């Protein structure tokens, strides 16, 4: 992605900036801890799963400049394999989620090796095509249950002791999973590895000339993103006790792009806000059927034309303008 793209932080962050982000993280988790008082836990779990999914997607677009239009393949396949392993093989929930995450990573390795051979617009098309291939595989494979999907995935006790049949208990487990995934991304972005990723985003030929093997960096970021998207999908399968073709269809890839775009590409908290906004909107518009598609498309158009930094990006830009004025 060229320098005209929406980019938030460039260069190593100062310690105070990192501290501000950690405080914001603590506030976010604090809100998460008290949120079930006011809001239905299943809805919150959905938001958290999609927030993690969007954060994983944002790792690629925001910090490496790679637009993946096929992230549903990791999310959806992980939902299927973890759902199947828990239901048919009797895996415990923690093992099922780990298994889904691992499958996401392996799929990320295979598709990543192919996709990183092209850049920019082609990367988007390649990932979209590969995810459509995974979609057709899931449509035809025996274990996925075709149009029905995998239903009634059992929620067995976590680690053999924690009863996650209770939605509120399970909500706190999902919050912990989300926090862990989020911290992995935060740590990655702020590591020397993350700095190289940003260098690739800003100027790939220069990164190559500095001696970095950019393909290794891109592949590793892709696998990490795929694994975390898989973790989100596997968790989602247990939350709704359902894995279906919706999870792996191209529309799902579009939704995660939309969430990240609305929240702010390349901002660490943007995808979380974006996921909350879009899921809330879908919840309220559920009765309007096909209009949801029209409205989502409309949001895409408006954000791309007028609002490219997204919610968090615009707030940050406003904050910086104010800071420089003062």
């Amino acid at each position, binding site marked *: 992605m060229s320098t005209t793209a929406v980019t938030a932080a460039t260069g190593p962050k100062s310690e105070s900036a990192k501290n501000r982000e950690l405080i914001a993280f603590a506030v976010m988790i604090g809100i998460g801890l008290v949120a079930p008082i006011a809001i239905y836990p299943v809805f919150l779990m959905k938001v958290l799963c999609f927030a993690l999914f969007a954060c994983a997607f944002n790792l690629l677009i925001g910090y490496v400049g790679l637009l993946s239009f096929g992230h549903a393949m990791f999310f959806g396949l992980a939902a299927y394999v973890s759902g199947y392993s828990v239901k048919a093989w009797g895996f415990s929930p923690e093992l099922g989620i780990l298994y889904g995450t691992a499958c996401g990573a392996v799929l990320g390795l295979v598709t990543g090796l192919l996709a990183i051979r*092209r850049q920019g617009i082609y990367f988007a098309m390649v990932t979209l095509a590969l995810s*459509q291939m995974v979609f057709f595989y899931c449509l035809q494979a025996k274990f996925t249950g075709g149009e029905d999907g995998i239903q009634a995935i059992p929620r067995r006790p976590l680690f053999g002791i924690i009863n996650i049949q209770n939605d509120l208990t399970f909500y706190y487990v999902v919050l912990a999973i989300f926090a862990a995934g989020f911290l992995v991304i935060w740590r990655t972005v702020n590591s020397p590895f993350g700095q190289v990723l940003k260098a690739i985003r800003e100027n790939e030929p220069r990164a190559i000339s500095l001696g970095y093997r950019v393909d290794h960096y891109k592949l590793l970021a892709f696998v990490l993103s795929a694994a975390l998207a898989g973790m989100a999908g596997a968790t989602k399968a247990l939350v709704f006790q359902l894995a279906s073709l919706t999870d792996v269809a191209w529309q799902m890839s579009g939704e995660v792009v939309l969430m990240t775009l609305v929240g702010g590409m390349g901002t660490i908290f943007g995808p979380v806000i974006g996921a909350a906004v879009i899921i809330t909107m879908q919840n309220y518009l559920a009765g309007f059927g096909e209009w949801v598609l029209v409205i989502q498309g409309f949001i*895409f158009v408006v954000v791309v034309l007028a609002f490219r930094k997204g919610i968090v990006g615009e707030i940050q830009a406003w904050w910086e303008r104010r800071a420089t004025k003062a």
Partner: protein
Amino acid sequence: MLFELIGIPPQALFGQLLLGLINGAFYAMMSLGLAVIFGLLNVINFTHGAQYMMGAFAAWMLLEWAGVPYWGALILAPLIVGATGVVMEKLLLKRLYHLDHLYGLLLTFGLALMIEGFFRKQFGSSGLPYANPLPGGTRLDFMFLPNYRAWIVIASLVICFGTWYMIERTKLGSYLRAATERPDLVQAFGINVPRMITLTYGFGVGLAALAGVLAAPAYNVSPLMGSNLIIIVFAVVVIGGMGSILGAIITGFALGIIEGLTKVFYPEASNTVIFIVMAIVLMVKPAGLFGTPK
């Protein structure tokens, strides 16, 4: 004799080959339009599938609501849909040229969602029939050739090579190719490049709509027909590379035929064979068969 050896009845083989050729005709027309638009606008037109669907619906509406027959729709529908493309470029796409190409993809994706959602709301997802304007067919030695299918193949070949001729062999086409290379220089020679960009987008969109009209009697007219097609066409574009008009045409037809043959010999893979070919091409020749590495 040969057919007995491989155990496939010739009817099935040639029938699937013809279906493959027809699918290939649509892949070729669609990837051609994408390539022309990308060449000048640097935008991957995600709306292309929706515009193909709009072409089919325009033909259906012209017939049902205005009594315009198929042959009239073949002219009118691309003009109408092309005009919507011109408006879209003038109002929306124009604002994104100074930005990263990915924003063009995101904008056209959003527009595709809006159009598809709107048509699904209005017409449902099941699809509407469109009467075949060329019923009947010819009985050949080895197969039955329906007239309309023969017409699709002939029409698409004429459209593809007409476009190729216009771009590669006419003066207008030479302006277009020059503007693809160096728009600033072409502008300096007094050619109105922004208008050329608008008309090129309109032309590409019209081409998609024309493919949609051709598709209407062959498949049902359905709001989903575009999004099903566009992803495959993206894979075709990745395989062919977008650098060459002729390359887009050849790749489109070739992949349609490969898909048809897969339906005969290994039907389970017929949905995925194009994506598998794409994966192989990415491994062997990452820039695409007709692309130039950059």
